[in-house]
């Protein structure tokens, strides 16, 4: 089990970086959802990667920092509400943050994310800034979804 102090070490590690351009791609189901995955390198060597996913039909957007041995440890969700273990609703802009007690079930409102889900590139930049993650490359804007799903 990842400890709180290990999580803080990972999050505060400013050597974390992702290299290369990010391109949104279809998922394995060829659903309307676009996604990407990119490895995170760091001096400390934690096995990390970032996943992103975007549903343009309903403007839901997520970025998650995933530790390969523990699962998601830090993640931003836009467009989807969240219910905390303490029974409070957090809202459609929320960020999951690992704790030993609740793993990734507890979320808070990240005040420094102010870009909307319809602007994934700006949200990504804000997510990277908060997660102490450097991106050496560019993120392409997601291509528009073609047509109606059910026609």
């Amino acid at each position, binding site marked *: 089990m990842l400890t709180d102090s290990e999580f803080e070490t990972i999050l505060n590690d400013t050597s974390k970086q992702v290299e290369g351009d990010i391109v949104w791609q279809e*998922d*394995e*189901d*060829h*659903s*309307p*959802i676009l*996604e990407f*995955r990119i490895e995170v390198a760091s001096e400390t*060597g934690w*096995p990390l990667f970032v*996943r992103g*996913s975007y*549903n343009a*039909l*309903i*403007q*839901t957007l*997520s970025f*998650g920092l*995933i530790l*390969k*041995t*523990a*699962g*998601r440890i830090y*993640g931003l*969700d836009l467009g*989807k*509400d*969240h*219910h*905390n*273990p303490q029974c409070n*609703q957090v809202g459609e802009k929320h960020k*999951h943050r690992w704790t030993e007690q609740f793993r*990734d*079930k*507890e*979320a808070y409102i990240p005040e420094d994310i102010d870009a909307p889900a319809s602007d994934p590139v700006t949200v990504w930049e804000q997510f990277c800034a908060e997660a102490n993650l450097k991106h050496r490359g560019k993120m392409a804007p997601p291509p528009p979804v073609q047509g*109606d*799903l*059910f*026609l």
Partner: protein
Amino acid sequence: MNSANICQDFFGGLESLFTCEQTGEYQRIRTPYLYPDGDIIDVFCKVQNDVVIVSDLGETTRWLRMQTVSPRRTPKQKTLIQDTCQTHGVEFFKGIILARCRPENQLSAVVFRVAQAALRVSDLWFTFRTRSVESVSDEVADFLSERHFPFERGEKLAGRSGKVWTPDFHIRAVRRSSLVYVLSTGSKSAARAIVNQIHTAWYDLNHLAAGPEALQFISLFDDNLDVWSEEDFRLAEQLSTVIRWSKPDEFAETLMAA
């Protein structure tokens, strides 16, 4: 509250558990159901001719994929999704859970079916290995069962030194049986120690790899995580056949080979 009005209070409070609002081209119904991390399950409705399409618009599989290390769902996870869809009378189309509300159907019943299916599909989260419910050895056992290989798990075998070893699997195939150690760790620093231990085990058990009923030794590396070095593979290759778990068909072929 008394027992006489329990039902009245229950039904009276149901409506407040749901919210409904327009989101893009869809009517979004926010349910009281939760994904395993506490995110809320939404269901989306769209009218087409005389039918209302009720779906999760792929949000459940999107949620699942955001939690996982694996690039694709396993065959077992796909089977569980099919089973869930059958139970709740919903369709799984391009990663979307959906059902049609026809004129003779009640919309609330269809919404509940889709929401409950989303809830159950999201519970696949509990099968992810990072949740410690299922190990890679369990996955291998499922695979062997699917391919109809008879096997025994955790058989204790004495080495030449007298030490007792416990390979993960003893698998019987038509032409030859195999002993398999599954090598899995999330830590690069632990990886070499694991390979060393398995190498020692194969060396100590090598009397079983001789004679007309010689056993084949297989080191099955869980390469889902990038923790193994080329040196690790080369070391394991000296005394065993190295297979990567990302290539299960190759594993099956090796088991069946003479």
